């Protein structure tokens, strides 16, 4: 989780990734941010996030992103 938070901070250091639960729903992340986050996750965690998983529910919070990464790593 720390690794993920570190990565997210690197993309946008002005967002409270630890506590925010509505990163997408409230428009806090723009599509370019999401693009950077996905590219970084793919690289750092050695996963390939499929297009079908790129939905608001999976990116609204750091917790949700972590759950997605864990699921992809197990598959």
């Amino acid at each position, binding site marked *: 989780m720390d690794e993920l938070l570190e990565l997210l901070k*690197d*993309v*946008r*250091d*002005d967002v409270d990734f630890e506590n925010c639960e509505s990163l*997408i729903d409230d428009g806090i*992340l*723009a*599509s*370019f941010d*999401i*693009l*950077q986050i*996905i*590219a970084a996750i*793919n690289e750092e965690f050695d996963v*390939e*996030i*499929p*297009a*079908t998983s*790129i*939905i*608001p529910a999976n990116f609204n919070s750091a917790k949700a992103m972590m759950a997605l990464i864990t699921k992809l790593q197990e598959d």
Partner: protein
Amino acid sequence: MTNVCEMLERSAAKFPDKVAFSDPRESITFSQLMTDSQKIACRFLLTCGMTGNSRSVLFFMEKCVKAMPVMFAGAYCSAFYCFVDIRQSDERVLSIIRRVTPNVVVTDEENRERLEKIAPGLEYFLVEEITDKNELDNAEIDRGLLANAKKDHTDTRPLYVNFTSGSTGEPKGVAVGHASVMDFIEVFTKEFGISDKDVIANQAPFDFDVSVKDIYSGIYTGATVRLIPREYFKNPTLLMDYLCDGKVTVLIWAVTAMCFVSIMNGFDYRCPDKLRLVMFSGEVMPIKQLNKWRKHVPGAIYVNLYGPTEITCNCTFHVITRDYELDESIPIGRPFCNEKVFLLDENDELISIYNHQKEGEICVCGTCLALGYFRDMKKTEEVFVRNPLNNDWYERMYRTGDLGKYDRFGDLHYTSRKDHQIKHMGQRVELSDIDVSANAVDGVSRSCCIYDHKKSRIILFYTGDIEKDALSDKLKEKLPEFMVPNKTIKLDEFPVNKNGKIDRKALEELK
């Protein structure tokens, strides 16, 4: 032809019942677009004092089909239109409204409240109301009124004004005339064989001149243009469904948007197999992402386009004909027909196309040149100048501020910027523009931005007693989203070189 509305009339006669524009909610045919535009134009002419040199229609909303007849209504009144990026700060929106002093302001239900807050007392129309079907069905077209509006029209009047980042912190409005758009679109559609059989998927927002190619290629050739809502670029399955189900054949996109599809693995979900032409511009295309596109959509022709807003969309192009190594650069290629593109060295001497060593500033001449920066003669005269190579007549030339070099095939390559302008999220950003805003914040004594090209991040360094979160919050109020630094770093003091200037190289080390 002297007005883009004549292109619309021609297509309306040829393809009356064909869909001109569609979005996920609705669509409009060419003939309906024409008559609705004319009716709305009459309303504007009767009630909005549509006279004067700089009559204009300003939009504060996202692009949609409903906006189309209102834009062309503006053109019928020989007024220019200006789309304001709604993601910008209130302060910046207000400064654009003040600069433009529009005769007509158009917004929608979604954005009206914010507009009222930004500019209290400003009169506006709701797009839902002016394009209301019942009302338009009952409205008349007053030909005399339309003819009268044409009287002072020339094709050198502005069609649109697009605002980009400016180095003084003030947004800079690029005014482009009807002639430039009609000239470029004819050449552009001919070069790539765009026709009424095509379906163009519009990615770019309308405040961005990439959209001009979509809108007017459609209007000129009779192709259907499908508008993709901004939200689809957060959701790849929605986007891929829209492209596939809409049988899209042509993409004229920003590089960032192309990367969105390939990085989000959109092709593993669905492949838009009708695509025949994929064109991209705005930034240097990462080869890795281009390769993904070519692998999944092998039947399409890929074209690298180059050019700043000031020369109307693009001035050079290069059709991709081979595979590129990951560290190679794709040429920006050769000039479009009716455009002169060349390199000048630091003494304003021409660099020969056979010279592969020397770097020079990319300069452009032709009908494509914008009219200048709206209500900013000083800035206009700095970059729209007389061609120093021509002593025989007055030839206007635009200095792009981009540096380039020829390869051994005589193709042009973009190398870097002359100043501190960068491309971030597909938008032009003057780093000094961010510095100006940061310096204006209480508690900041000095600031300087650098750009991490590898990671595409803006990094702001500053000294002063304000906390970095507080500074971030202040900048978010002042700057558009794409200009807010990704990272803010507080320093005790700036590294300086021997002339006392901030040492940017040393800052690179600190990031």
